[in-house]
């Protein structure tokens, strides 16, 4: 081939490559590490995170990146297994290119990795860890979902005061999050004068709830409070229907707020009470920008988990913009966060490095989440 022609061709190809896309950056990217469940039981949550984060990063880089440097997320799949999240933490903290970490999903997975981030001195910002002991556990840990210390009393008020149900039974998932969630709910409900008739646990892999439901039914509760994820909740709702136990209300915390619950649960989850920190019909401009962008890119509406991850990555970006890429400077700047306008509400860290959220009461009607209206 003609050498001159080859030279010009390659020049054109290279100039095209460098004028658009990520190759156009001359500066070294800023790396943020991601640890979350991209496969396994919690895959839907982690994949929603990934979508929201990719959307946010796309916008950030299109607008010139962070202080002239592109932002890059390195994704690691933890399956929300504490063994995996700890291994990822080991990998991330030992690589100096990472400035901070976002993740993991369950409180258990976060708390398993926590000592590693703590020892290495790297920010661990979990979008969803709501265990009250997570954020206070290390000066490097931050939680932005709000803790059960806030949601527990909120749900108790919903059950006892709004719905007027005083006879309550609890069926919870036996992990760190489930135990904390039921404890805060029970404490608050008792203070409001409710009677807790029975408390039963199930395990993460359980699929058969007929036995435990039959047992709980014997206590004749008016309301069943179920701290769990959507998978188990859908099965519990279906199996309860099969047992013909209809004279009880089902309620669970905001972890249930996902279209998958409606898809798996079908008509069985109608009438289920839950809560949310993010509601896509919220008219605030930042919410609408996010919802529209997400719908255009993925042809699906974002859920709470996408929203909270979106807030997390935007918050980290904002902090890095102010403080630079030093791991310690990022942490110090993060603690100063005040009224950061997230799509899940304003973020202001308490001295325990978690936040107090505003919740909305929801109820499922005709296969859709709707705002609860008092009669």
């Amino acid at each position, binding site marked *: 081939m003609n050498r001159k022609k080859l030279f010009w061709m390659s020049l054109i190809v290279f100039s095209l490559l460098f004028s658009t896309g990520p190759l156009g950056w001359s500066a070294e990217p800023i790396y943020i590490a991601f640890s979350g469940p991209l496969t396994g*039981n919690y895959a839907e949550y982690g994949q929603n995170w990934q979508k929201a984060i990719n959307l946010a990063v796309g916008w950030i880089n299109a607008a010139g990146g962070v202080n002239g440097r592109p932002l890059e997320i390195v994704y690691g799949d933890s399956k929300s297994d504490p063994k995996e999240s700890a291994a990822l933490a080991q990998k991330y903290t030992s690589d100096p290119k990472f400035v901070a970490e976002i993740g993991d999903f369950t409180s258990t997975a976060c708390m398993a990795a926590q000592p590693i981030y703590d020892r290495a001195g790297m920010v661990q910002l979990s979008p969803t860890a709501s265990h009250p002991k997570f954020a206070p556990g290390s000066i490097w840990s931050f939680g932005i979902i709000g803790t059960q210390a806030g949601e527990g009393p909120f749900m108790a008020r919903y059950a006892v005061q709004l719905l007027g149900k005083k006879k309550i039974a609890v069926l919870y998932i036996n992990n760190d999050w489930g135990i904390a969630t039921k404890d805060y709910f029970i404490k608050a409900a008792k203070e409001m004068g409710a009677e807790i008739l029975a408390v*039963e646990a199930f395990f993460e892999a359980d*699929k058969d709830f007929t036995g435990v439901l039959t*047992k709980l039914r014997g206590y004749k509760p008016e309301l069943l409070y179920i701290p769990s994820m959507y998978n188990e909740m859908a099965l519990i709702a279906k199996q309860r229907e099969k047992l*013909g136990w209809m004279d009880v209300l089902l309620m669970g915390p905001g972890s249930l707020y996902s279209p998958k619950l409606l898809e*798996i649960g079908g008509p069985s989850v109608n009438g289920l009470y839950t809560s949310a920190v993010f509601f896509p019909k919220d008219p605030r401009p930042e919410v609408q920008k996010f919802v529209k962008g997400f719908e255009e890119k993925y042809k699906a509406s974002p859920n709470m988990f996408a929203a909270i991850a979106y807030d997390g990555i935007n918050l980290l970006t904002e902090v890095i913009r102010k403080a630079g890429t030093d791991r310690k400077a990022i942490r110090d700047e993060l603690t100063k966060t005040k009224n950061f306008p997230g799509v899940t509400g304003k973020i202001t860290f308490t001295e325990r490095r978690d936040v107090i959220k505003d919740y909305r009461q929801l109820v499922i009607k005709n296969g859709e989440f709707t705002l609860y209206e008092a009669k």
Partner: protein
Amino acid sequence: MLILAQFINGFTQGSIYALIAIGFVIIFGTMNLVTFAHGEVYMVGAFMGFFALSLWHLPWYLALAMGMGVAWILGFLIEKIAFRPLRAAGHMPPLLITIGLSIILKDLAVILFGAENRPVPSIYGETIKIAGFQISLLQLFIIALAGLLIIVLRLLIQGTKIGRAMRATAQDHEAAYAMGVNVNRVFSISFSLASCLGGAAGVMVGVYYNAVYPVMGDTAGLKGFAACILGGLTSIPGAILGGLIIGIVENLTVQFIASGYRDIVAFLVLVIVLVIRPQGILGKKIRAV
């Protein structure tokens, strides 16, 4: 009343365990071998049932037939690939091959179907009241269906030529061979038949718990095997009894102790029975299907 409800829960679960356990009994009885891929055959049957019910919207009996059919084919292939070439190699190699097959099938299912839980649509969602007591129609349906399959199996084994050949092979396959029984064919049919029952159990579990997922065969295979040992390894009535005992003990444990203890107590019962009666509840000295 609650105890009765837990009994019915346990009976339903137990009749599904019994179907799995019978599969182990047939395989062990005729071939004198144990398979560890039985739970995965059950899982494949369950997925087939899920596809038939929720993607193709077929009626339950077609879904059941398809689940059993796929399991039959899978059983036929497993026997052909893993057992037949190694007939002379003793017990260990086929056992190890089935462990490998179990891992392969599980991972294949994760790749092909995804790791998440698949929702299976409910059938017979209603409950009926008998003497003021509410009973789920689906539970009655599952118990009846399991019973029907067991009766058909009994007729097959007692009343047909191939059933007679199976019983003869179970007693002594060399003698059966000498008498002109096509032992290879008997092995193949026995294995397929056992797998077919596993597939039926899979479809029933999918409908009962509304959940189908790739690793569902792990616990089911273990419980079915435990039921088979409890019953005496080579006795079909024993396997049924073993399955029902495990199912009922599990649900009574949930009622009287806690949900987390169900497997502990179920296996504890197994250990105690084996200590007292090492041959199992209905185990005999002479092997017979």
